[in-house]
């Protein structure tokens, strides 16, 4: 299922609620910002940011694995979207 050798990559996984999903956390944060005086804030959506360090033969393989992990566990595609960005791990 997963590579156990090859170089190490950093997958940055951004998980966000779909636009059709109500986000009470985001609404509460926007409320707070408005109270602080940031009247220009139109809207806030809260999400998750995950860093996955993984071994894979290539960036493409790392991308494929990160997306598979996102589909299966990191995101719930009933309510969330995700985006994976791969870079060589330093």
């Amino acid at each position, binding site marked *: 299922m997963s590579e156990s050798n090859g170089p190490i990559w950093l997958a940055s996984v951004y998980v966000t609620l779909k636009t059709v999903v109500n986000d*009470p956390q985001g609404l509460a944060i926007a409320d707070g910002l408005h109270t602080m005086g940031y009247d220009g804030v139109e809207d806030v959506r809260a999400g998750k940011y995950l860093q996955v360090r993984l071994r894979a033969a290539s960036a493409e393989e790392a991308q494929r694995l990160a997306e598979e992990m996102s589909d299966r566990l990191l995101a719930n595609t009933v309510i969330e979207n995700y985006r994976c960005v791969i870079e060589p791990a330093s």
Partner: protein
Amino acid sequence: MNFGVIVFPGSNGDHDALHAIGKVLGQPVRAIWHRETSLDGIECVIVPGGFAYGDYLRAGAIARFSPIMGAVERFARDGGPVLGICNGFQVLTEAQLLPGSLLRNAELEFRSQWVHVRTERTDTPFTSGLAVGDVLRLPIAHGEGSYFAAPEELARIEANGQVVFRYCDPTGAVTPATNFNGSLNHIAGVCNERRNVVGLMPHPERGAEAILGGADGLRILESALSVAGVRV
């Protein structure tokens, strides 16, 4: 009828379920640790409430991959009765054994109180002893119970009659005031298309004896016995 209660690290409704089934309903029941891989001899599976794996990532997301869940999925696909209570409901939606998902409550509050739900369907193992329109008074305790499904899926769930319970007032009226967690269509419980898997946010096992403030929950647990032909 042999009941099994799945126990994940972080489950906290497991002993309530074991008590309600073993002592109140008087049926054989055993706890099944999530590391087990077999449901041999089990005729009804309860996925209890709590905070499996600390609700990390999303409620139910990690529990859904516990070793026992392979057996639970096979049991469900073979038509075996499965009841998910609160966190168990969340686990079953994550496992895609039930449609939709449970979101953070609309007001961001953890709600611990008694609520009323109206019975919408009696063609599931857990509502066969009820009548459509029956109002049950049950306790809830959750922070993420706001039922969501995408518009097309919600329409399909409604058209298929998969909504089993809706939040209502004591007379059974579904009013905005009774939708305390922001669930779409006031949904408190749903079933799968085959109708053998049911999930609900309220806790029937915590409201199954008068001494605990209400016994309506027993009617849900009792209903399951009809599957095995056991007379109450």
